[in-house]
């Protein structure tokens, strides 16, 4: 219906026709320290009506490749070589030869190739109305007048399933949820009916159920319009779910490409095999997992009706208190030697729950009881500061962010030795123990003198684990301990934790948003939603036969890293009414 207004758009092409061909693309950043070859000799093809997934871990050059196509590589980056061929009805343009700032290039951006980005929070201007930002594309690339643009924007918002589009058009981005913003971004990208949509990790910052919806939406819009999609992701599950073709990038190079089934089931390159292997590994319970302790095993932690209520003052004089129940009446029992997973989406209260157990966050109600080695019950929620500090040797925490949880101004030895030092250990004894711990987490002993900035993310997480283990704890609260790591490292760190658990008789409260990590690592799992535990049971039972409709929705929204077993299309959708 709008085709007529976006001129120059090729019509009636056959599916499968290549619409965008990248040949031998090299993009280099001229840094002070020397040239950085972000993309080297990369070639791939986007076909009409098809989805090409570019997959790779952080630093693989996949985002730079996408930006090279649109010629929006940030300085000091430049395209060194290669052709970027955009096929039109009558002619083909080599985007690499255009001036990045030329009107010709600008006429292509947003009109024939458009792009959506990872961060739905910051990718929209916070001070302009959503409608204004979407209409801008129309203003640039079509001849529509203002009322017509507005009508078209409302139509677009309706197409991306934003409720009440007539009102939504005049809202600001901060009034939207994350998923809604990403929908608005998609509406913006599709405004001029582009031939190619480049999506750069568009679902990475979203919850898994929201991710499933956005993937659905993109697939549906693609089918309607027959555009080519170039989808950039690090998640092999998403790749298996949506890709027609896959292009694997590593260190700026395309190491393997081809149809999705071939990539997943007959990968040639070892890196591809490793990526798929790591993802597939997390599809099952860890082989090395010790058997779960029986129901008769003594408890180490009992949580009863733990609640946290946050009050924010609002309105005139701050009289109108806005109450948020971060956690409501959470109850669970962790047995000795057991690993209990807590899974939930952002805002479900899982992190608050974990931190309340350690009293890092003060609970507003309920009780948590810890049982020490002799089996004596200690009521955590009634302890004073001194009593808590004594227990902090037995209960430890592993943090999510390996960057911010290590003090950058202390050496590895000081970081790991801090709990020992505060326990009154002597310098020599600390050194010996730190060496022992470094060995345990697989780091060489001679890194003791170094500062955290000299380590990579995975290594830092190992240091964090060593610190948690230093005073020989019995209980560890791990808060998203693997979430900041690339998939290939995730399994490694989990295996390390399993190994240590076996040796040290540890119990874990393991918090994660990632159900596959939980399934790999945990014995039982508690599913949290909006502050409440909706389901709790053995991992296998919950994963195979979830009882609560939300758990079912959550599980079915997780993409499976196997293109032969796609399931998002048939997934279970959780509707609010079902719960209440």
């Amino acid at each position: 219906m709008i085709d007529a207004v976006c001129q120059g758009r090729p019509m009636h092409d056959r599916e499968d026709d290549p619409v965008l061909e990248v040949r031998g693309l090299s993009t280099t950043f001229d840094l002070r320290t020397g040239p950085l070859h972000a993309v080297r000799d990369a070639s791939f093809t986007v076909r009409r009506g098809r989805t090409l997934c570019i997959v790779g871990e952080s630093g693989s050059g996949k985002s730079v490749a996408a930006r090279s196509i649109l010629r929006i590589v940030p300085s000091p980056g430049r395209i060194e070589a290669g052709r970027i061929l955009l096929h039109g009805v009558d002619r083909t343009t080599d985007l690499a030869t255009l001036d990045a700032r030329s009107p010709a290039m600008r006429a292509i951006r947003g009109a024939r190739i458009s792009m959506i980005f990872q961060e739905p929070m910051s990718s929209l201007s916070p001070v302009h109305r959503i409608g204004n930002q979407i209409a801008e594309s129309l203003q640039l690339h079509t001849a529509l007048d203002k009322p017509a643009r507005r009508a078209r924007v409302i139509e677009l918002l309706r197409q991306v399933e934003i409720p009440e589009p007539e009102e939504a058009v005049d809202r600001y981005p901060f009034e939207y949820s994350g998923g809604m913003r990403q929908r608005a971004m998609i509406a913006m990208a599709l405004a001029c009916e582009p031939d190619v949509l480049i999506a750069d990790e568009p679902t990475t910052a979203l919850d898994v159920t929201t991710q499933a919806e956005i993937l659905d939406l993109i697939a549906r819009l693609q089918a309607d319009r027959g555009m080519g999609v170039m989808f950039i992701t690090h998640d092999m599950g998403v790749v298996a779910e949506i890709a027609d073709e896959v292009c694997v990038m590593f260190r700026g190079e395309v190491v393997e490409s081809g149809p999705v089934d071939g990539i997943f089931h007959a990968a040639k390159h070892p890196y591809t095999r490793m990526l798929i292997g790591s993802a597939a590994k997390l599809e099952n319970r860890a082989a090395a997992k010790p058997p779960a302790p029986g129901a008769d095993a003594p408890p180490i932690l009992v949580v009863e009706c733990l609640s946290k209520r946050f009050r924010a003052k609002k309105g005139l004089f701050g009289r109108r208190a806005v109450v948020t129940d971060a956690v409501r009446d959470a109850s669970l029992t962790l047995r000795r030697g057991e690993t209990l997973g807590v899974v939930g989406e952002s805002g479900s209260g899982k992190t608050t729950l974990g931190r309340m157990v350690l009293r890092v966050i003060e609970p507003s109600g309920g009780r948590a009881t810890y049982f020490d080695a002799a089996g004596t019950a200690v009521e955590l929620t009634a302890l004073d500061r001194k009593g808590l500090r004594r227990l902090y040797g037995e209960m430890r925490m592993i943090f999510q962010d390996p960057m911010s949880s290590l003090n950058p101004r202390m050496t590895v030895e000081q970081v790991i030795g801090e709990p020992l030092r505060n326990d009154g250990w002597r310098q020599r004894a600390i050194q010996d123990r730190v060496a022992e711990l470094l060995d345990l987490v697989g780091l060489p002993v001679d890194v003791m003198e170094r500062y955290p900035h000299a380590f990579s993310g995975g290594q830092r997480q190992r240091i964090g684990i060593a610190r948690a283990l230093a005073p020989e704890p019995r209980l560890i609260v791990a808060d998203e301990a693997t979430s900041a790591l690339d998939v290939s490292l995730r399994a490694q760190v989990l295996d390390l934790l399993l190994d240590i658990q076996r040796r040290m008789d540890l119990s874990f409260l393991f918090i994660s948003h990632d159900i596959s990590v939980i399934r790999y690592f945990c014995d039982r799992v508690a599913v949290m939603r909006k502050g409440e535990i909706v389901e709790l049971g053995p991992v296998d039972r919950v994963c195979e036969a979830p009882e609560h409709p939300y758990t079912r929705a959550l599980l079915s929204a997780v993409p499976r890293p196997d293109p032969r077993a796609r399931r998002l299309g048939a997934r279970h959708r959780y509707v609010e009414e079902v719960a209440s």
Partner: protein
Amino acid sequence: MLAYVARRLLYMIPTLFLISLVSFAIVQLPPGDFLDSYISTLEAAGGDVSSREVELLRARYALDGSVFEQYFAWMGNVLQGDFGWSFMYQRPVEDVLWGRVGLTFLISLASMLFVYVVAFPIGVYSAVRKYSVGDYAFTFLGFLGLAVPNFLLALVLMYVSLTVFGQSVGGLFSPEFQDAPWSWAKLWDLLAHLWIPVAIIGTASTAGLIRVMRANLLDELSKPYVETARAKGLSERRLLLKYPVRLALNPFVSQVGWELPALISGAAITSIVLNLPTTGPVLLTALKSQDMYLAGSFILILSVLTVIGTLISDLLLAWLDPRITYE
């Protein structure tokens, strides 16, 4: 928005109260009450003071009461527009006050306008052409502007104009308009004189704000929404003006509001050097000769008006940035 305005107005009340306390403290600081000095000056001048007059004044300002009574008497009078008696001018304070306060604010607001008009484009230029020769030059000039005290700049300017052009700059009016009633010609004369103090007062703030604008814009330029806009096909210039500059404007606007006290300060001291008929010179003489009602009133009025000025700039900011009232 209305609730926000109401809340900001309510926040002002304790501020205004504290300001009145400070001003009152300044009135009270010199030993003895003002009547003592009033009487002594009058007697020194050979005048005669009737005891009845003294009694009346004493009662009016509750000078025999406690400090609290004196404060409330003073505040009560002030709220009715009676700021006390200036023995230096032998007139009620308000007669001296308003004309001078008006000119002070005229100069300060003109300086603010000057700061805006100069700092904004230079800041944008410096950020967009980061590390260019122009950027370095402006940065250096900015630092220099921050390092030269207002009064020194005024002195140098006066010296240069006296030795090179052989005329003295100073005052806000040419002699023929000094006491003339307001007319277009007088207004024009004022504007012709105004730019020198305005430039002097505005220099330091301009220098500071160029740096603020540059830093803000550099921050904004690296935000993802800029990339989104670029991917839409916007031209660089239009993109720059519509998005990052618009967002960098917010902290810039709030900063300008906080520059107002500095500009008023600058106006006070510059006026003394250039001998402008604003509050500065009167305040100084009033303080030196302990004409405390006059001095206290000046400080009170200047502070109150400054608080109102910053309020206006905060409201402007709230209007610019929808997120603020939403919080």
